[in-house]
């Protein structure tokens, strides 16, 4: 058990080191920092002095180490485009992305489980079949088309909901939140649905197939034989056992929600880190790209690690031999 946790933590650290290396290589080899920082009028001495002061004449791995130390301390360099510290820009944008991701995740989880149970219980009903067919379409629709379609229906044709931005935000000591104003909440609706729809269909299909699997088990048959009510069987007995894989998948999907937020944020001009990243690619703003890469990898690796450990904690069967596939 302990060795398993230790191995997973070591793996995570290794992934982060590799990502850090990629980010560092981007800094070091894509675009010459000397070129960017010094103007046209420069002498060889200027170049030498800057090289010395930036530590660019040190061996590669020493530079890499310095880079990692600085990154851990929150120094992520200066944006080429905005001329401000990257850490500052990201801190400003992060709340927007995290709020969007949280609402989308909650939406996906809630409706995914509800629809999943519904389609499993009313397996052959018309509504269940309609939901299943629609979900197939939802899986093949690219995220950005879903967003455009929603904008067209609810913003252009019906003009019920805003098509871009976060609405009014309230600043809570450096954290700008859209949860406290009406326009902020309304602005969250379309982007969250766009972002959460794919995850919702995924969770729904998973819950459905797990539920159907569990309903075939002997203990459910026994519960029926005892004359328990359908409701009790479905929600007290069956649902509990379907939720183990749901937790894993939801956890892992949390990472993709943050990544796919890039697309949703661009469609809705949502001022989060995803939009920042896309703009950084368009303008080849290497420090912002590298910082985003490191930020998102820390999130991913942390989520994966927590999910893996949670899985062992929830499912007692995995604790016996202390191994997972």
């Amino acid at each position: 058990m302990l060795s398993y946790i230790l191995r997973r933590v070591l793996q995570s650290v290794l992934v982060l080191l590799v990502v850090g290396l990629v980010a560092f290589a981007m800094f070091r080899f894509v675009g010459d920092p000397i070129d960017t920082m010094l103007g046209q009028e420069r002498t060889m001495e200027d170049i030498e002095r800057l090289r010395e002061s930036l530590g660019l004449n040190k061996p590669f791995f020493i530079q890499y180490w310095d880079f990692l130390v600085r990154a851990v301390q929150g120094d992520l360099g200066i944006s080429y485009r905005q001329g401000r510290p990257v850490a500052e820009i990201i801190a400003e944008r992060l709340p927007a992305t995290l709020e969007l991701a949280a609402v989308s995740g909650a939406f996906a989880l809630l409706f995914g489980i509800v629809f999943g149970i519904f389609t499993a219980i009313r397996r052959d009903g018309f509504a269940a079949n309609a939901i299943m067919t629609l979900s197939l379409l939802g899986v093949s629709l690219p995220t950005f088309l879903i967003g455009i379609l929603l904008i067209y229906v609810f913003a252009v044709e019906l003009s019920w909901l805003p098509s871009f931005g976060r609405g009014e935000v309230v600043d809570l000591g450096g954290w700008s939140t859209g949860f406290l104003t009406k326009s902020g909440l309304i602005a969250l609706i379309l982007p969250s649905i766009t972002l959460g729809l794919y995850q919702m269909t995924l969770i729904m299909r998973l819950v459905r197939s797990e539920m159907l699997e569990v309903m075939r088990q002997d203990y459910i048959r026994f519960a029926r034989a005892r004359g328990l009510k359908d409701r009790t069987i479905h929600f007290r007995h069956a649902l509990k056992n379907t939720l183990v894989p749901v937790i894993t998948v939801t956890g892992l999907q949390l990472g993709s929600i943050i990544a796919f937020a890039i697309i949703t944020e661009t469609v809705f001009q949502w001022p989060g880190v995803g939009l920042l990243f896309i703009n950084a690619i368009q303008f080849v703003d290497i420090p912002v790209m590298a910082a985003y890469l490191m930020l998102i990898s820390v999130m991913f690796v942390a989520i994966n690690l927590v999910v893996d450990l949670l899985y062992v904690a929830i499912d007692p069967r995995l604790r016996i031999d202390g191994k997972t596939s």
Partner: protein
Amino acid sequence: MTDSPNTVQAERARSRIAMAWDSDVAHSFRRSPVALISAAVTLLLILSAVFAPLIAPHDPFNPATLNLMNGFTPPGQANMFTGETFLLGTDDQGRDVFSTILYGLRISLFVGFAAVAFALILGVTLGLIAGYVGGWIDTVIMRIADVQLTFPAILVAMLIFGIAKGITPPEYRNEVAIWVLIIAIGLSDWVQFARVVRGATLVEKSKEYVQAARLIGRSPFAIMMRHILPNVLSPVLVIATISLALAIIAEATLSFLGVGAPPTEPSLGTLIRIGQGFLFSGEWWILFFPAGVLLALALAVNLLGDWLRDALNPRLR
């Protein structure tokens, strides 16, 4: 009584076609309406992309044939200044939407196929080597695969595109954008191939025919290419089809986000990006026709891949 070699060959060729026609896969294909329709749609779209210069009524990239007065003509209606009619209308610059879709489809399909081909060759090669050679080479390849799998493919593709953009000098960026896109999507997608091929190779490696080939002294390269590869190809085919749908969507997404095909060579995604700007002013056709074609293409290839997976995997039937 002796057959001439020609008749024997002809007989073999005929029986191979007959065998293919009678095979389980072909049988289930003929029986499945979904497979037939999606194959027809895919084929139609591929053919119209290939023959785009012959089908398209206008050349959207020849400025000489463009008339700005034709801009924003609704589909099927005569333009109020020039009196010209366009099947699917025109965009802001007076380009025929039908023609831009045909040329856009060409780029989308080209990038999709090329990216999958790249991912397939890379993934299958690395998977074969990892599975057959094993040892530290296997560990290194599969660890890289694991790390990459931690991140969604689209993010990896964006990052590679961004880095490549930083490396190329600004004046060449538009020219190489398509190739960068192919490499970016291909590199983001090889892991699937490598994992499946490695798994299948590990199974095949222990079988007797491989041991026999090794005993008669065939080189590892020959064993991998001539003996193992043909036996691991059917899952590769399934992954390639599903990857094609994913690659087409990935390309469209990247181009839509403005980090893909350049405006000089618009793919379906670029066209949708352009069209989104006119959504609020009422010119819906500039957006919706390319979007519809993209959707039809992605859905058809996806369904074809699903069908192929079920048809090649008898356990699921």
